[in-house]
Every structure is written in structure tokens, then in C-alpha cells.
């Protein structure tokens, strides 16, 4: 019998959330102010949770490692946010959003959570508009929508290419209102380094003031971890430089199970690596695949000629190009889901068809779209005799209106004009579907400790659909936690303030100081980045887009070795009692070095292909689906929740069996 209880409410899926809200405990307003809540992270999930909890009357303390809550990495999300509003009258509904999300996640998400997400999605848009978030509008003054990959309706709300920024600034403004009232106490430039568990309950955290280096104790009746994803375990990703797993990993080591760590989203359209000095990768929005055609040359001679500059890509005729997505997936073509598009690019590059110096790039070509739009524009403009050049000019104008900011960004980075020559793109780590295991109430396996947003594992299964991350972050923070936490906190009204001088706080602080002292005293020869890059290489080569038993076993051995060397040979200049960026990085990389091993172990254990997790041993043999990912519902229809036992290699697996009562299990086909 599993120790995991997902606490999914009884009743039909449509009524679960409503019934649950009606049946759970609430805390009376006078008592709320006697209850402290700590929120770690101020992105969409943490920021919205902190603001909502403070509005309700709880005394909130919010923490972020950046210099302001507005800098959390949710700010960088480009495309949009999904909501089942059906403003376009195209048949969208809560059920359809629920269905698309479960299917898009390759049937590895929890039905009840996903349904609730779809259910509250419409409220998010209402809430954000009321806060003054300037979403894109039509000329009639109503909200505009666009469509995204993997779905058949237009349900994505957006603010040009800066939707994440606008939503985060909305949550930030809601926080500011509460900070101004003294209901949220904000701790900028603070990093959580441990959770304190007293009598089996989360009762506070140990944090380091990043300016002074002082170690602080903060107590509360409940702790929310909203610290984002762990894509930076790969070193290179589209995450911000500071994005890290530390808060999540620390609660894991204190008893919170870590679920599906191997589920990683590798986004197909990012700007390729240009050299060893590369510090991060930049995403080019998925929306580009609406008009861009992806290809590599058919012949190796042309690949070589393009790489050495003797031939330009535009010189290749149609017959000399391999539009491999259109060839392999005629039904969906360039608009297959992210995991499928990424693997196909890797397949071509591994076969030697990569088009840049590193051999890791494919073309994303807008020439056909420019021609098509140019001809349309010429017709509309009554220019039947428009010259070839005029058509290109008109077409480029249309493309500029749709994707201008992305084209400009590309040109600034690569120094090539994407209107004239195809973009070069390659997949990059973008999002992690795995994370801290939570029940229906978003509580972890530590009572009183919650996880929200990308930090938890719950809603996206093995693959997240575009424009669903923003939706989940805000759903968790605005509309789920404020209710579910009340149920737990109702029992805390007589507890009184939590003292910080208990033996548990003493021990936690001592442990944190111990780690810092050890790190500072290694006084080795290599920088933190050196180890982080080594780890990233192993993760990318052995546990990246395609995984197999041999590589994963090798990865585990290599990571253990890097970890050992890290603790023997890392060099951190400066002192621990001052602002020390290298120490900050070292603490985070130490945790990545443990998580990386659990990641590989999880990938090894899951001997099936599902969503972003592709095992080379598990592919379809014969028939139309030949060579495609093969999911194994008989043996792997569960959530892997790992329990810390003192060493990542010895983590204990618990399984939460997934039940699909409202959606029929099917093979995803994009042929």
C-alpha cells in the first residue's frame, strides 16, 4: 500500500472542486492575522499566493533571491496564457481545455488537478484584467486571442511577446499593495537554505541575507515553496541564470517527495549555442512555427558547403531541401508538439545534417510565408503586376507585424537578418514538468509545507502545452492555495507564534552554517561554473532528448564523480559574511549535483517513452507509427515519487497510480 494519499475529493469530476471548497475548514478573519505564512519565490505562483493570502488577512513573509520580486523568471514568458473563455465561439469549454492538457501531457497528469486548473482558468483572466493587465485587444475593445500548438481552438490570451511580464507585474502590483499595508513583509536578496520541521510540521525556514551573508531564522505556521523549475541542472537552458532547485531540494531532503524528476521539456525553437563561453540559451516563441518551415539540406555535400560558407542556404533549390517535419508528420507538419519537433531536429543533426559549425542547428525558414503573404497583400493593394521584389517587400512587412520583436532579438544575438536568410534554431531545455509531489491541496508530504507553480509536479504530466505554465502558476496562487491552506491552518488558530529558539531551529541553522563553512574551506582550484558545466554536459549528452539504459547508468556514475570532485576542489573566493555571488552559485550547484543523479535514476527506472521523456528502448515497431515514442500504460501509468534516504542514489520510489475515469487513454498520433 502506497504511503501517498492524493486526497482527491469524491464525486464527479465537475463537482469535485466546488464540493471540496464547500466542505473544507475556513479560518475566521480575526484569527487569520494571528497566523504567519512564509512564501518562497515571487514569480506568478509565489507572487499571486503571497498577495492573495495577505488580502485574506494572513501575516505573510515573502522571500526572493533577486533584488525585487518583479524579477522572478516568470517575467520572461513570451507567448500567452490559456483560459477556457470561449470568447471566439469556437467550441472551447472547461472540458476541452482539460482534455487537451491531459492528452498533451501524454496521460501522465492527475485528472482531478487538471480539471480544476481548467475550471479556474477563466477567473484568472477576469482577475488580471481587473488588476490592469494590458492584454491585447481587438478594435471593438474586447480581448483578442490566438492559437497555440497541440490544440484546435483559440484560447490563448496575450500581451504581444511579453505576456509573462505583464502577468507578473500584475501579481507584483497586488503584492505591492499588501507590502504598502504591512500585510506582506518582503525579504529581497534572501535565499532560503532550509526548511525547519517541528513536531512533523513545517514551521519556518533558514534564509541567508545575500547582502550581509547573515543566516536568519523565520518562523511561520505554514510554508509555501514557489521557487520554479530546475532546468538549470543542464547548465544551459532558457531559464534565468539564478533559477535553481535549492528551495525544492532542501524540502525534499526534509521529507517532501520529489516526483517525476526526469520529465523535462526541451523546446524546439531556441537560438543555437555559439561557443564555449555561452551562458544561457534564448527562446524563439513557438508562434514562429505557424509561418516558419523547418528544414536541413538533403545532401551531405550541401551541409558541408553551408558550414564552410561556400554556399548560402537560400541557394539551395526546393528539391535539395529536406522539410523533415512535413515529410514525417504530414498531418501536423511544422506544428507538431514540442517534444516531437525537438526529437526530430536531434535525429537530423545526429545523422550529420546540422547546418552550423557545431553541427547542432536546423533552419527555420520564412521565405515561403513571405511569398504567400506578399502575394495576398499585392491582391489586397490592387497591384496585380507587382514585381518579385515588391512581393517580398510586402510579405516581409506582414511578417514584421507578426513577429517583429522576435526577428529583432534574433538579429541582435546572431548578427544575421532573418528576413533574408533562414533562422538557425536548435532545441534547448525550457521547463521541468517534474517537481515536488503534492496532493490535491498542493500540500507536500511534509504537513504544512506546500508547493506551487513549476516547483510542483502536478498538472502537465510528461509534457506541457504552450501557454499553460502561466495559467498553472496563477491558478495555484490566486485560486487554489488561498482555499486549501485554510483547511490546514484552521487547526492552527490556537498555536500562537512559532518560537525560533527551539532545538529544531538550532539544528537547522547549524546544518546550514556547516554546509557554508565546508564549501568556503575547500579552497580548491576550480570555479563553481567549471563543475556546473561538467554536470550540464553529462545531463545533456546522457539524459537529454533521448535516453537509454547504458547512457543513464553512465550518467549516474559520472555525476557522482563530479559531485565528489566538487566537494574536494571547488574554489570560492571572498568571505561568507558578505555579498558573495560565487558562494550563492556553489550552494545551488551542490544541490543540482544531487538532483542530477535522482533525475537520471528516475529516467532509468521509467523504461517507457512518454511526452518529453524518450527512451530509445521504447519505440513503436512496424506500422504507421514506426520509430515513434511508445508509452507503456500497463507498467508505467503512475507518478514516480522519490523519498530521500540520505543519498540520491538510494532514494526510495513510491508510486501514485493514475486513474483515468473521464478521459480514455489513447496513443498520441501526429502522422
Amino acid at each position, binding site marked *: 500500500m502506497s504511503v501517498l494519499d492524493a486526497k482527491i475529493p469524491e464525486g464527479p469530476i465537475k463537482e469535485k472542486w466546488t464540493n471540496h471548497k464547500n466542505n473544507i475548514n475556513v479560518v475566521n478573519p480575526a484569527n487569520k492575522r494571528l497566523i504567519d505564512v512564509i512564501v518562497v519565490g515571487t514569480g506568478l505562483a509565489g507572487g*499571486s499566493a503571497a*498577495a492573495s493570502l495577505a488580502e485574506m488577512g494572513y501575516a505573510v513573509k515573502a522571500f526572493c533571491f*533577486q*533584488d*525585487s*520580486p*518583479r*524579477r522572478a*523568471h516568470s*517575467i*520572461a514568458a513570451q507567448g500567452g496564457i490559456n483560459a477556457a*473563455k470561449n*470568447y471566439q465561439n469556437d467550441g472551447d469549454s472547461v472540458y476541452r481545455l482539460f482534455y487537451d492538457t491531459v492528452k498533451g501531457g501524454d496521460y501522465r497528469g492527475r485528472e482531478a488537478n487538471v480539471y480544476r486548473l481548467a475550471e479556474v482558468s477563466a*477567473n484568472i483572466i*477576469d*482577475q488580471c*484584467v481587473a*488588476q*490592469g493587465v*494590458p492584454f*491585447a*485587444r481587438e478594435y471593438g475593445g*474586447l480581448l483578442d486571442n490566438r492559437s497555440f500548438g497541440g490544440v484546435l481552438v483559440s484560447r490563448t490570451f496575450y*500581451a504581444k511577446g*511579453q505576456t509573462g*511580464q*505583464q502577468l507578473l*507585474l500584475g501579481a507584483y502590483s*497586488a503584492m*505591492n*499593495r499588501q*507590502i*504598502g499595508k504591512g500585510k506582506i513583509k518582503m525579504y*529581497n536578496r534572501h535565499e532560503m537554505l532550509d526548511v525547519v520541521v517541528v513536531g512533523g510540521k513545517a514551521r519556518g525556514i533558514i534564509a541567508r541575507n545575500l547582502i550581509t551573508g547573515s543566516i536568519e531564522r523565520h518562523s511561520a505556521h505554514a510554508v509555501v515553496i514557489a521557487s520554479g523549475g530546475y532546468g538549470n541542472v543542464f547548465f544551459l537552458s532558457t531559464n*534565468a*541564470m*539564478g533559477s535553481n532547485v535549492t528551495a525544492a531540494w532542501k524540502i525534499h531532503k526534509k521529507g517532501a517527495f520529489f516526483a517525476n524528476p526526469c520529465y523535462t521539456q526541451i523546446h524546439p525553437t531556441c537560438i543555437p549555442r*555559439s*561557443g564555449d*563561453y*555561452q*551562458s*544561457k540559451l*534564448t527562446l524563439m516563441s513557438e508562434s514562429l512555427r505557424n509561418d516558419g518551415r523547418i528544414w536541413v539540406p538533403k545532401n551531405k555535400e550541401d551541409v558541408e558547403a553551408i558550414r564552410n560558407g561556400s554556399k548560402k542556404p537560400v541557394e539551395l533549390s526546393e528539391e535539395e531541401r529536406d522539410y523533415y517535419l512535413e515529410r514525417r508528420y504530414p498531418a501536423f507538419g511544422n506544428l507538431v508538439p514540442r517534444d516531437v519537433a525537438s526529437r526530430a531536429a536531434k535525429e537530423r543533426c545526429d545523422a550529420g545534417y546540422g547546418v552550423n559549425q557545431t553541427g547542432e542547428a536546423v533552419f527555420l525558414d520564412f521565405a515561403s510565408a513571405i511569398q504567400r503573404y506578399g502575394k495576398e497583400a499585392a491582391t489586397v493593394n490592387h497591384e496585380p503586376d507587382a514585381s518579385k521584389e515588391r512581393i517580398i517587400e510586402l510579405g516581409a512587412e506582414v511578417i514584421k507585424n507578426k513577429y517583429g520583436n522576435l526577428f*529583432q*532579438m534574433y538579429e*541582435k*544575438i546572431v*548578427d544575421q537578418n532573418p528576413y533574408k536568410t533562414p533562422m538557425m534554431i536548435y532545441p534547448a531545455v525550457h521547463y521541468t514538468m517534474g517537481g515536488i509531489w503534492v496532493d490535491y491541496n498542493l500540500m507536500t508530504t511534509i504537513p504544512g509545507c506546500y508547493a506551487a507553480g513549476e516547483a510542483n509536479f502536478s498538472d502537465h504530466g510528461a509534457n506541457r502545452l504552450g501557454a499553460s505554465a502561466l495559467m498553472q502558476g496563477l491558478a495555484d496562487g*490566486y*485560486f487554489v492555495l*488561498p482555499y486549501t491552506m485554510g483547511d490546514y491552518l484552521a487547526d492552527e488558530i490556537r498555536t500562537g507564534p512559532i518560537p525560533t529558539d527551539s532545538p529544531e531551529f538550532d539544528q537547522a541553522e547549524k546544518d546550514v552554517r556547516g554546509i557554508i563553512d565546508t564549501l568556503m574551506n575547500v579552497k580548491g582550484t576550480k*570555479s563553481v561554473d567549471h563543475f556546473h558545466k561538467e554536470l550540464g554536459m553529462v545531463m545533456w549528452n546522457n539524459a537529454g532528448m533521448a535516453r537509454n539504459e547504458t547512457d543513464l547508468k553512465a550518467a549516474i556514475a559520472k555525476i557522482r564523480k563530479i559531485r565528489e570532485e566538487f566537494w574536494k576542489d571547488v*574554489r570560492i*573566493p*571572498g568571505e561568507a559574511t*558578505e*555579498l558573495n*555571488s*560565487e558562494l550563492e552559485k556553489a550552494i545551488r550547484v551542490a544541490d543540482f549535483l544531487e538532483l542530477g543523479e535522482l533525475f537520471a535514476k528516475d529516467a532509468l527506472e521509467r523504461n517507457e517513452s512518454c511526452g518529453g521523456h524518450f527512451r530509445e528502448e521504447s519505440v513503436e515497431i512496424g506500422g504507421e507509427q514506426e520509430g515513434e515514442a511508445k508509452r507503456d500504460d500497463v507498467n508505467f501509468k503512475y507518478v514516480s515519487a522519490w523519498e530521500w534516504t540520505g543519498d540520491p542514489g538510494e532514494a526510495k520510489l513510491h508510486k501514485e497510480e493514475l486513474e483515468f475515469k473521464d478521459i480514455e487513454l489513447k496513443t498520441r498520433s501526429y502522422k
Partner: protein
Amino acid sequence: MSETTMNLTLKIWRQKDAKSKGKIVSYPISGISGHMSFLEMMDVLNEQLINEGQEPVAFDHDCREGICGSCSLHINGEAHGPDRGVTTCQLHMRMFKDGDTIFIEPFRAKAFPVIKDLIVDRTSFDRIQHAGGFISVNTSGNTQDANSIPIPKADADKAFDAATCIGCGACVASCKNASAMLYVSAKVAQFSLLPQGKVEAKDRVLNMVEQMDKEGFGNCTNTGACEVECPKGISLENIARMNNEYLKASITREA
């Protein structure tokens, strides 16, 4: 795609902490590719310093794609360096030539005290937002339907343009008065253009301007350097809009 690299001299502001005195220190650096971003060049320098047993240069940075607003730096006397419409993290080394000397300093303003090396304290910006940079609406599952408030597209677009401010502080660093008017006006303008924001418009502008003055930012003398250096192209028109709002509010607000 030339593979030639550059040798440069970096003159960088080093300051141990808020209380210590700072100074410019010279660092030679070689093998810099034009494809590197400015901050990747700084990474190379820091790796070099760590290997030599020295303390690396501290600077703020996070997203490295021009949206979080963490990175700052005054490069050769310009906020975010010589390119236009980019933050320091989007600035590329191809903007420089082999043999160049590059001065790298923190953003300078009384309201942005230096914390260490190139890192400054910009929490004064947050405190201005606490004073009124919001619409007072509680989270509620019963908020009126989003489409019940139609907003003319032109207004919505203008509000969006103002809202794209990333709060980096380049406007303050570029202004001879260290004024925060562009930053404050971007938020005031965003909300004054939207019907949701009109209810509290008067209190908002008065409170935010009061806090801005308290923080020690200077006043605006319409030089326009802020608009030139702003990586997001926030328009000076926002300042005019804020002045208009401020005047209206100070005359008509009930005591």
C-alpha cells in the same frame, strides 16, 4: 562570421561594500569573440580572476534576455552601453573593436547606493510602487467578466507600451538630475489610460510622486536622455501624461 577575437582593456569600478570607498581597477582581457554578449565577456573575466585567486567582479544579472531588468552597468558613460534598445545582457561584443578600453561603472544616483562593485540598491523603485503602483482589487473568483469592460485598442496599446518598463533604472542613471520621472510615469500612465485605474488615479499619482521625492530622486528638466537610453523605448510622453494627472489631482483632490 569571422572568428577573429579582440584584446581589450577593462576599467572596472571595484568597491568592497556600501561603506568602503571604491576605485577603478584595470584588467586586460584577450580572446573575446564578437558573438559573446557583454555579460559573457564579464563571465570570462570572472573565471580568469577566480583562477588567479582574486575576487570576481560582482554584478546583477538574471534572465540574460532583456526582460527581468536585473542587469545594469554604465558602459563607457552610457547606461546599458553603446547599442540602442537593448539591455547590457543583450549588448554584444561586436559593438567594440580590438584594442578598445571599456569603462564599466555602476548606475550612479543618490537613490541607488552601491552595495558592492557594480551592484546597486534599487529598492527605492519598489517603495515607489508600494505607494500606489496598483489597482486596489482583491483576488476573487467573482470578479466581473473580463470582456465587460471594453477598452479602445489605441488606449490598450498605449497602456501596454508604458507597462513594458522593466524597472532597470537606466533612466535614472542617464539623467543629469537622477530623476525617476520616466519610471514613475510609465506606471501612472498605464493605469490612467485604463478605466480600471481611473478610480484611484488621483491618490495614485500624488502618493507615488511624494514617495519618489522622499527617496531622493531629482526632478525632470525635459532633457530626454532617459528616453534615449531606455532599453524598452518608454516614451517621454508618459512624463507629460503624469504631469497632467498630477496637476489635475493636486487641484481637485479632496482633503
